[in-house]
């Protein structure tokens, strides 16, 4: 079925059919990843640029590999090393990249709405690789792929998302995507890190971590950033891990065959204990593999749109 929009800016406005399209295409792409010959011709002749205003190892590498596995010409710009440091606006940077014959721009930016601004001003297709606190759609899609791969029916799942929901674009995108697929999404975190009206997005805000984890099919930990502690949003790392981190005994409240997920990189001992990260429920590494497959699927579906 494919994707309706020229861009992938978020999952807020995506349909169930489009999500399933991505997941099913990713399943095919994963076979390529697992084969000996990691090369397909689908993006031959396409020019793909990753424009990252924020540091990232895994997402950027994941996109670059996805592009190259499919024979695209892939290049990278990181904000610090370019004219952005000289004060060039996002729109001007985007137009410059556009003018060089680029087909797809993959942007990660510290401010919500930046990909939307870019998409309004350039012809190339824009993929949001994370904008401020707003969305990280490819992460949520790979998370949903992981759940779909293991559990088959997303609509029956109880999903618990634990941590700093307020600042998490991963949480938001997952909330949009999972609620659209009919899953039962529960969120929990310290009150200072919970958006005031998040229940308007169709999630249950749990007052206790045990409520969130009880009989959960999926437990997703979120990365906590140190600068949030510096802003006084929680008093110490010790408090955070004691009261809001996930350990083995808490995980036992979830279903025996639950999936333990995390977008990475994990702060060992903080949001998840080492035992939990390495336990048999953990699918954290598979998420990474699935990430490349999902991004291959997206690049394929978005560039194929042009000919439709």
């Amino acid at each position: 079925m494919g994707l309706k929009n020229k861009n992938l800016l978020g999952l807020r406005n995506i349909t169930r059919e489009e999500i399933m399209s991505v997941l099913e295409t990713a399943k095919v792409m994963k076979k390529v990843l697992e084969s000996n010959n990691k090369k397909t011709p689908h993006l031959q002749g396409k020019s793909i640029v990753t424009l990252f205003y924020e540091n990232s190892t895994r997402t950027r590498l994941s996109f670059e590999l996805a592009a190259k596995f499919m024979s695209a010409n892939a290049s990278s710009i990181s904000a610090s090393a370019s004219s952005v440091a000289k004060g060039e606006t996002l729109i001007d940077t985007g137009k410059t990249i556009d003018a060089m014959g680029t087909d797809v721009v993959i942007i990660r930016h510290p401010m919500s709405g930046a990909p939307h601004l870019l998409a309004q001003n350039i012809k190339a297709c824009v993929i949001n690789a994370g904008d401020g606190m707003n969305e990280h759609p490819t992460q949520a899609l790979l998370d949903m792929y992981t759940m779909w791969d293991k559990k088959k029916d997303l609509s029956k799942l109880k999903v618990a998302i634990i941590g700093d929901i307020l600042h998490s674009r991963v949480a938001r995108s997952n909330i949009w995507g999972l609620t659209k697929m009919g899953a039962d999404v529960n969120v929990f975190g310290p009150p200072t890190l919970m958006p005031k009206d998040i229940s308007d997005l169709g999630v249950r805000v749990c007052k206790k971590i045990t409520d969130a984890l009880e009989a959960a099919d999926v437990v997703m930990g979120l990365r906590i950033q140190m600068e949030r502690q510096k802003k006084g949003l929680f008093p110490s790392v010790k408090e955070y891990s004691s009261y809001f981190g996930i350990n083995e005994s808490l995980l036992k409240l979830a279903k025996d065959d639950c999936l333990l997920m995390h977008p990475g990189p994990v702060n060992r001992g903080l949001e998840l204990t080492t035992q939990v990260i390495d336990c048999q429920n953990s699918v954290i590494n598979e998420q990474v593999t699935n990430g490349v497959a999902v991004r291959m699927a997206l690049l394929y579906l978005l560039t194929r749109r042009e000919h439709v």
Partner: protein
Amino acid sequence: MKDRIIIRNGFVVDPKSSRQGYFDIIIIDGKICEVIDKNNNINCLSSYDYAQVIDASGLTVIPGLIDVHCHLREPGFEYKEDIFSGSMSAAKGGFTSVACMPNTKPVADNKTVIEYIKNKAKNIGLINVFPIGAISKGLEGLELAEIGELKDAGAVAISDDGSPVSNSSLMKKALLYSSYFDIPVISHCEDLSLAEEGVMNEGKMSAILGLKGIPSAAEEVMVARDIILSEYTNVPVHIAHVSTKLSVELIRKAKHRGVKVTAETCPHYFSITEEACDNFNTNAKVNPPLRTQDDVEAIIEGLADGTIDIIATDHAPHHIDEKNVEFNMALNGISGFETAVGLCITNLIKPKKIDLADLVRKMCVNPARLLKLTNKGCLDVGYDADVTIIDLNAEYKVDSSKFYSKGKNTPFNNYHLYGEVKYTIAGGKIIVDGGNVICSQTNW
């Protein structure tokens, strides 16, 4: 004789003189000279043969609108707006007098800047521009500005607008000290520590868009503080741009207690909500931010029951490069002169939330009283000939590209509004004729 004007056949709404009905108005040499009741007098205008005649049939005639809160950006930010373009824009919007805020560069915390603004406006010769001086030196919120000097130079009020006076002790001193000079204090209420890095209202929309929210408490906490300080010092305070339900309730209760607090709101706070920020629309980014439907309704109720005394524009023009950026980076402000009347008629008058006489109180009588403009806000004999004539039924589509203001930043572009200003007369000179600004003298 260009200095004689007759406005005929208009429906006059002038609550201060208790007139509402069909009256002809005669202007000579910049003053209202005669007001003729159409019911009682046959037209005998032979002595006014050489006057300019405005046929106001089907139109509503009110005193010239007075805006107690706007930003003209000159000196220092002329790329956004200057006193000339701002005057044209205000005139087009039906304003014959505006009071401009001191967050210019240099700040209007000394007599030189105040005099500069007054003289520039006088040379331009369009509308009356009344400078507002700073409460604190440099708007830094540390030391009182030389308020006596500001008053003598012609400042009509003092404010640190743009910024709050965060230090409560300084606010108390400002109220006490200003009372000696009998100059009104206008307060921008915002607790900066609660507002933190917020860029829009904290609520459903900020949760959806992943943007940092400003809690309504940030405004309310300081409204409460200023009410208490006003009560404690027994000095009046005027609350700028009220935007939340609780702010209205606090002011209502304070007034019942006899506190000398007055309040203003702006058209955007009774017209649209935080939903206008959807799709990261930077034209809806303003401080205080757009709030919820509950707040909109409370603002309208506050206007209806007199809790809110004044409607001001907080006209805040910006350059397109300052709005056409990421939402976090965009500057706060709405270019408001040219949509104010349309929004008032469409959202207050047409749905019968307030009546015309009330609107005139909020945009003419009460502003004149706040700023002590004794010869304005009324169409009686002897008052300054500042008149605004509106077609209440004219429907039009907002086109920001045609604004006289340099600032095209409005969330109302392409909105259909009722209520067009057809004539603006300032000091007995017609400066807007048939909806177009005419500048006869431009010695700027």
